[in-house]
């Protein structure tokens, strides 16, 4: 059984279509990065997956319909919707007590262990903590839940680099095992490139790119082309070309590494570069189609 399975998932707000018929299948044990520009429909899609918003189409999360079975789903799924949604009046011990009180899969000792690694005091109120500490606290709570699915929607927005790094490190080292599934959206794509097992680009409510990181690394290559070989390089049909310090960097899809090595320095592109390439090609194609 797939962890998340969507067919023709659609959601409109009035005349604005936020999610436009998404087909999606996330297997167990994957870490999927959902990447998209602002307003692409990422959060709406995640909200549908988490049972926070009604939708059209078919959607099963851990075998359940999230909209009608949110309460049951939340026993096996966890999410951090945003930084700073922890209630500001809450004290750390209250959060621990409450989780232990209502969540069947919460392991209090584990949460206390995670918190012990931070400087967060047991009696602190959320409002007294810095943004980074609130994120640490929320992560400690969520990681102590033995969930099958964890959804993170911009969990590190507005945090400094140290907290961001720490966040993903502890997620990988202390939480992730092959039986859990994690779905994460973020704008800091570079930082999670090594974390992900799969990547998906979403734009204007549609999935425009979907691939595993293994495939990504074998398929896509980036070459900083020597100026005298630029014509030869362009003949290989790069999917994108950009200029850095006066030199051309060309992005290729499914071109032999040896062939490219002759043209300049070859390396694996970053997800961000591929994202820009895919999106600019797409908008170019869309404009071409419109004419």
């Amino acid at each position: 059984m797939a962890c998340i399975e969507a067919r023709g998932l659609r959601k409109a707000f009035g005349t604005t279509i936020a999610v436009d018929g998404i087909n999606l299948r996330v297997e167990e044990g994957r870490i999927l990065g959902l990447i998209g520009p602002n307003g692409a429909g990422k959060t709406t899609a995640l909200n549908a997956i988490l049972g926070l918003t009604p939708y059209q189409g078919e959607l099963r999360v851990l075998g359940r319909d999230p909209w009608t079975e949110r309460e049951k789903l939340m026993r096996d799924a966890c999410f951090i919707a945003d930084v700073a949604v922890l209630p500001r009046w809450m004290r750390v011990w209250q959060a621990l007590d409450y989780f232990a009180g209502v969540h069947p899969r919460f392991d209090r000792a584990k949460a206390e262990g995670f918190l012990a690694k931070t400087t967060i005091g047991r009696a602190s109120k959320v409002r007294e903590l810095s943004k980074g500490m609130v994120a640490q606290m929320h992560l400690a709570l969520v990681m102590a839940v033995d969930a099958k699915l964890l959804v993170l929607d911009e969990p590190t927005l507005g945090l400094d680099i140290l907290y961001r790094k720490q966040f993903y490190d502890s997620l990988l080292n202390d939480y992730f095992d092959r039986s859990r599934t994690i779905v994460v959206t973020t704008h800091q794509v570079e930082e999670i490139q090594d974390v992900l097992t799969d990547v998906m680009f979403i734009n204007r409510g549609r999935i425009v790119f979907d691939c595993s990181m293994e495939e990504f690394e074998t398929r896509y290559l980036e070459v900083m082309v020597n100026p005298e070989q630029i014509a030869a390089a362009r003949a290989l049909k790069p999917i994108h070309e950009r200029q850095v310090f006066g030199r051309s960097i060309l992005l290729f899809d499914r071109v032999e590494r040896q062939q490219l090595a002759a043209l300049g320095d070859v390396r694996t592109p970053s997800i961000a570069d591929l994202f820009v390439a895919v999106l600019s090609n797409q908008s170019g194609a869309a404009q071409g189609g419109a004419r």
Partner: protein
Amino acid sequence: MSTPSNSASGSPLESQVTAPAVITASRRMYWSVRRELWESRSIYIAPLAAAAVSLFGFLTALTFSPVHRHQPLDVPYEFAAALIMGTGFIVGIFYSLDALYGERRDRSILFWKSLPVSDLTTVLSKFAIPLIILPLLSFGITIVTQFVMLLLSSVVLLGSGLSVGTLGARMSFFHMSLMLLYHILTVHGLWYAPLYGWLLLVSAWAPRAPFIWAFLPPFVIWGVERIAFRTSHFLGMLQYRLTGPEPSASTARRGNLMEMMSALTPLQFFSTPGLWVGLAVAAIFLTAAVRLRRYREPI
């Protein structure tokens, strides 16, 4: 107040293999109510403050105006009860208005919804505060306050040579407490249920300013009815709801609101159609609030 709980027992390895704990519906409800008390501390602070004020006033009266010692002493007792319960009622109104609005405003609804607690449990736990928790709390605080007042005046009376027994007879403390409990459970709990239901519904729905949305519609209905039909049935209905079921003429002698509202015997009270209509209306409001919360997102 942090409970160490199971942190001492069980290594991380052990805890990994333990089966998920069984969380009963009543346990979820208990923790949901508990978290309301953590969040809105005015639920118990305000009645306590009212109690402190009454005690202070009573003490001042005992100390500085000896005349009071020979007056019927149940007047300050009833006043203390009215003050504490009135405070509880007002707290209940403001609490209900903010209950489902505040969590959307501060976005914490996203946190609450990430936990396996249904919208029904959440709304019912919030409804339980003005319906059960506040009345019982006010009752408890009132009883303790009155008891302290009784002790204080006994000390003063002993000092002045009067027998305490006459005071006890006059007061019939036990009888008064029972009356109070009956009043608080029937009127503040059951009779006012549709009022709290309405406030919770507005609080779940209002895009902003729940206070205005709660009080404007009744005002508009009253105005429209007055202009269009030159009647005021709606106002009468509201008054009926606020003042409680009609007492019989004989029991209304003292003009005390609490006495008036408690004047009905349980049989009379539970056979008042207004009670059941009110409870049905409350159920409708609550159902709507539960449904709304399911659809609601942060504002």
